[in-house]
């Protein structure tokens, strides 16, 4: 495993867990850290981090957003890079400078944070080289491009490029891969029936590829799509892309149990 020559082998990364990974799928955090360490980074997880503040920001509560942003900025002071397994949360960090007046001391610090914050697949391709991956996953997969990663951060080719290095994986692109899955944070609770129509379109497109696994880079979208697929009775697995990249697919897929894992392993 070689790190790219542009980054010293000890790039100091503060890992931004994101609240959904913290609560729902810690294995995504461990997989991300494994990849970062493989890329030669020294990873720390600041204990004072909580959430990026997006629920408040998108609900129009600027004061709470600003307060949360301040604590995130404090928590990640001093790291060369801040990396997280979500385009949406990292995209939010990029919005922080907009929250402060230029004469507020946090303004410059927010700008600095935004300049150091990366979504994990983009960090592993655009900033540090990952060398050759030692990962294997047998099967046909399809990839959902989550909106914020795609349109705010330009994450499109990076996860695909990394996936192409996983032994045994074959990628089948779905129709409308770039169309929103209908999650939208509080949107899916406030307008559940519209959200349902959107996620139904998404799961139909995903299943039409014949893929056994649906991948993505944002846990919010993945929970939404997995929840829908399970409700529809589908056996399609849903996973965060880093799980495959880090060769950590021993955990049941999202919304599945250990029993499903055994069943699926027998099934294909």
């Amino acid at each position, binding site marked *: 495993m070689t790190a790219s020559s542009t980054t010293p082998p000890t790039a100091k990364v503060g890992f931004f867990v994101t609240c959904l990974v913290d609560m729902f799928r810690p294995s995504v955090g461990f997989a991300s850290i494994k990849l970062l360490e493989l890329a030669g980074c020294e990873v720390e997880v600041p204990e004072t981090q909580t959430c990026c503040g997006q629920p408040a920001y998108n609900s129009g509560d600027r004061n709470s957003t600003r307060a949360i942003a301040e604590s995130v900025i404090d928590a990640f002071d001093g790291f060369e890079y801040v990396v997280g397994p979500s385009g949406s949360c990292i995209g939010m960090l990029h919005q922080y400078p907009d929250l402060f007046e230029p004469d507020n001391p946090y303004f410059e610090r927010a700008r600095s944070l935004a300049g150091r914050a990366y979504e994990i697949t983009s960090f592993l391709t655009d900033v540090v080289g990952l060398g050759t991956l030692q990962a294997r996953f047998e099967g046909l997969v399809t990839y959902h491009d989550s909106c914020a990663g795609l349109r705010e951060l330009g994450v499109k080719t990076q996860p695909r490029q990394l996936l192409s290095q996983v032994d045994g994986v074959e990628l089948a692109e779905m129709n409308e891969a770039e169309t929103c899955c209908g999650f939208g944070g509080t949107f899916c609770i406030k307008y559940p029936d519209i959200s349902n129509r*959107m996620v139904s379109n998404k799961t139909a497109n995903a299943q039409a590829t014949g893929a056994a696994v649906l991948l993505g880079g944002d846990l919010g979208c993945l929970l939404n799509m997995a929840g829908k697929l399970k409700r529809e009775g589908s056996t399609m697995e849903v996973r965060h892309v880093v799980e495959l990249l880090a060769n950590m697919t021993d955990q049941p897929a999202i919304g599945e149990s250990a029993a499903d894992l055994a069943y699926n392993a027998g099934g294909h």
Partner: protein
Amino acid sequence: MQIHSPEFKQRAGDALDNANLQRALGNLRDGFPQKRAAAVARMPEFEQLRNEGRDLKNHILANLDFYLEQFEDNVIKQGGQVHWARDGEEARRAILEICRNAGAKTVTKGKSMVSEEINLNDYLEANGVKPVETDLGEYILQLREDHPSHIIAPAIHLNLDDVSDIFHKKHNRPRSEDPAELMQEAREMLRKQFVAADVGITGANFCVAETGSTIIVTNEGNGDLTQTLPRVHVVITTIEKVVPTLEDMTLFLRLLARSATGQEFTVYNTLSSGPRRPEDQDGPEEFHVVLLDNGRSEMIGSEFQEMLRCIRCSACMNHCPVYGAIGGHAYGWVYPGPMGSVLTPKLIGVDKAGHLPNASTFCGKCESVCPVKIPLPKLMRHWREREFERHLSPKGFRFGLGTWAWFARRPGLYRWVSRSSSWFLKRLGGKQGRIRSLPLGKGWTAWRDMPAPQGSTFMDQWKRHQQTQQQKNKG
């Protein structure tokens, strides 16, 4: 158009249950985006044009008073008249007066969303002037006493069947299902109206300051007949439509056609410059431009100014997954989709249109296709901020959000809450690994399962992991 935006949720629900509408929306989702993508792919410099369009609009908005006055001067020089209207009421009155002075019984109309904005048809009808819509889509809607659901394809919510039915009923002819025949039928009906009309009313896509001209773009040619045959031509338009020169106009025409329908150029681009001159073959005897403000000038200098760049191409709604799911009528007023979600709260009040800027996932697709790069999600967020400040968002939601934000600033307590929540949800998920019904999350579990957490939180697991590492290192 009556305001139904407060009933957004109900109307969206009805739209989702309406199989005919869903069929029509399927056609829209398959049609417009592909056509636009193909047109953009054929033009490598499209991105540069978008930047130019954005910059030019910004320049115009910064000098709006100058260009509007220049436009007025030149309309007058061409022999036309300009009527400034602060609001819908003033615009309606000005138009009625023009009709009365012309002794008009019927007026033909080209497609105009501004006339919907000011409820012109009902007003004219109530005052003894019969408006006849001549755009095919608008004509169909008028027969059905229906309203547009899209800003360039007003009858996009209808299927062929609906057209066959209404023509059969209103035209007293055998029912046809052949689009060409139906078109011919409409043409025959409309010809008589074109000739009979005393006044023709059109909108304007742009007003050209240097020449005092207005332009409309159509694919049917109905606009030409509406503005050249009657004795009087009235243009009803809004102040942000002004552009400095003819050359500037062509920049927007190139952006507009590609963004709207994927055409290189719209079929008919018709400029009107004053009334008929002695040497002209045809044209109206009078030329009036009604310039409506209706709250737009207040947007200048506000956080919503960028919305005034809009050239009404409809790309944002054609690509919007929410619009694609529920159609335009759910939005409950004239302007649907992302552009409507920003504009409508300004025009009818955010207290009435509050749902619109909220009913978005902020997926950003609209902004990515907007030919003048309006940051639509950001502007919708600004409305949410105004709603939040004015305590217009639902109480329960505000309370939930406030509680969450309070914890989010207190990492220790936050840890404790996420730890207990994961524990609780994990238990609820049981052996299945997912939850079928959550009392406090019905919005979610009515339609999908809630995947259960894996177990303890990442932060707790990471701490344990660190401790074992340290012990290993010591040992």
